[in-house]
């Protein structure tokens, strides 16, 4: 029998942030090509940062992504503070973690409930899904709102918060302002268990790969803003050392650079990587919830990342509660910084994965050079490899189902294309 060839093509990928397309060429059960085509127009952030004051950077880089602005602000601040030789500790550090909790809760809820869950239940979107699963969607939206409330109180607003500055915050919240968040956080801590039970009954495609997971690892905490960059195959470096380890390549079909580890290749960052590398750092509540949802310390099925995101929401809610309950306002809302000529490095855990920044500052405090490596460009190659690996399954499915499955495989990564451009329309071609 002649080998059947076909192309799976998605013109504009839906329920991802930003613009991208996907083309898969199949010959029989083999994929001959997989191209994630990110046509998000480039905005040249690394170039336009040159000549700006180091104090302006967190406001500018937040505009790279409306979904994870806090991640950009945090990596920027840490990198610049590294260059200036200052350390932000105590209540200010706790407030940064709290702001990050808000972003994880908001961004993960958006993805889990509105972008990813409809894939498993066969709906085009969350609004259509809400007709048959009203409680699950309403619960998800309310959990999402809890995250937004944290960001609004602490940051001023949920998209592009105004309160973050190099050295800390412009204004530290009062205890009463933060404590007002507790009732909704307590409610969400109870509700997320139901969401996890709901999602754990989804049917997950049987698919696993032996990824090299990369995430931050901290001596005592589930990682947000600090830690060494480690991998499941022995990488263990500082952010400064990672700069040389991470190589970015340009491919002709994408405005997003492809990252790989020098002499190692593609890797995976994000919730799955954090979970696998930091299971022992989860709080008791999140760890028990993970186990009861059927997740074990090792999870190599990217389709199950939705469960991991829900566990991470729980972790972030639990952490937020802890931070608020023990909060005493700092004496000063920020550490005073003084410009000097230096290069600094910072890596924090954006909801989608590790976000690396490097800045060189000149003697006048202006940015001379910037390097930003967003999670989606780090995961691009791995997304393509996943699709190569599932080619035989895609070849056996009717085209509409194959296309759906391929899109879902990309959405597993919660790709944030606005960030990565520096992505989605899906095509499967059978030659």
């Amino acid at each position: 029998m002649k080998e059947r060839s076909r192309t799976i093509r998605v013109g504009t990928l839906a329920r991802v942030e930003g613009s991208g397309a996907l083309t898969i060429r199949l010959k029989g059960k083999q994929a001959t090509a997989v191209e994630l085509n990110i046509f998000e127009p480039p905005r040249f952030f690394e170039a336009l940062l040159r000549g700006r004051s180091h104090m302006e950077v967190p406001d500018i880089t937040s505009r790279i992504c409306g979904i994870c602005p806090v991640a950009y602000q945090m990596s920027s601040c840490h990198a610049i503070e590294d260059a200036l030789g200052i350390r932000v500790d105590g209540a200010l550090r706790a407030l940064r973690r709290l702001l990050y909790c808000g972003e994880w809760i908001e961004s993960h809820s958006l993805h889990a409930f509105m972008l990813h869950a409809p894939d498993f239940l066969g709906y085009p979107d969350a609004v259509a899904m809400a007709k048959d699963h009203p409680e699950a969607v309403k619960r998800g939206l309310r959990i999402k709102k809890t995250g937004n409330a944290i960001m609004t109180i602490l940051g001023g607003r949920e998209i592009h918060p105004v309160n973050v500055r190099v050295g800390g915050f412009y204004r530290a919240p009062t205890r009463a302002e933060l404590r007002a968040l507790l009732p909704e956080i307590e409610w969400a801590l109870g509700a997320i268990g139901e969401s996890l039970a709901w999602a754990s009954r989804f049917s997950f495609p049987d698919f696993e790969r032996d990824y090299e997971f990369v995430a931050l690892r901290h001596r005592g905490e589930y990682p947000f803003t600090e830690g060494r960059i480690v991998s499941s195959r022995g990488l263990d470096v500082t952010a400064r050392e990672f700069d040389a380890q991470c190589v970015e390549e340009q491919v002709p079909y994408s405005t997003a650079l492809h990252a790989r580890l020098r002499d190692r290749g593609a890797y995976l960052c994000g919730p799955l990587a954090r979970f696998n590398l930091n299971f022992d750092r989860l709080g008791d509540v999140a760890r028990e919830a993970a186990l009861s949802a059927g997740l074990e310390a090792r999870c190599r099925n990217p389709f199950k990342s939705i469960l991991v995101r829900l566990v991470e929401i729980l972790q972030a809610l639990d952490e937020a509660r802890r931070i608020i309950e023990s909060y005493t306002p700092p004496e000063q809302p920020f550490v005073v910084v003084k410009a000097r000529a230096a290069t600094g490095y910072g890596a924090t855990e954006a909801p989608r994965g590790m976000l690396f920044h490097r800045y060189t500052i000149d003697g006048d405090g202006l940015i001379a050079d910037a390097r930003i490596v967003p999670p989606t460009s780090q995961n691009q190659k791995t997304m393509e490899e996943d699709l190569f690996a599932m080619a035989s399954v895609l070849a056996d499915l009717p085209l509409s189902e194959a296309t759906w499955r391929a899109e879902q495989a990309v959405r597993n990564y919660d790709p944030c294309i606005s960030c990565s451009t520096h992505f989605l329309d899906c095509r499967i071609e059978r030659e």
Partner: protein
Amino acid sequence: MAARKPKLAVWKFASCDGCQLTLLDCEDELLSLSGRIEIAYFREATRAEVGGPYDLSIVDGSITTAADRERILEVRRMSKVLVTIGTCATAGGIQALRNFRDVEEFRSLVYARPEYIDTLATSTAISRHVPVDFELQGCPIQKGQLLQVIVAFLNGHRPTVPAYSVCVQCKSRGNVCVMVAHGTPCLGPITHAGCGALCPSYDRGCYGCFGPMETPNPRSLSRWFLDHGTPRNALVRSLRSFYAGADAFQRESVRLEQEEEPAAPRRDR
């Protein structure tokens, strides 16, 4: 026969996605809104796609590529009412900083193979390319204002979004003026209201992320900044940020760069 629900389309051009995300951030209103309006095209939210024409198109993002310059013409043809949201769509966004520089330099700074990258020399507002029915300002836009705009168009009238300055909202919040009391440079007097005077409420000066108010007087504010010790290059940078491409801010930043000496001698009234 039940009336047909109006069809909404949401379009994305060069942007951070934050302004269209604002719609998904309407956690309390989204489901009821979807009962009154058919979400016919919104790639960030749905796989489903209903063809045009559309009763209301919301456009997020600026025009930075030749392909997008063509696509916006098609979007306009399919849309009865077209509303642009956010600085990218209304003023070119932060990426309009390229308009003051050489885009070739930008392209080769970021990309090893710049020839693969399709980009225009400028980032421009949607209104530079097609007629726009309403522009909603902000970086990002404010959720309440977005809902107000959608509901206004559903009911067939124009939205009433105040075009006065941040100062008005700041006063009504009862803030102490950060400029008068602390000497903190603040773009509030020339910046479009909408955020609710967030920055002064968080002990910092406004950084202009809602763009110029109606009939601003940036020259007068510049003089204040310079007299109070803000370096000229820092002032140029503050005008040249999220609304760098808005006429009033652009003209003033260019003037400041071209005039070597501190503005004009101070005129006593």
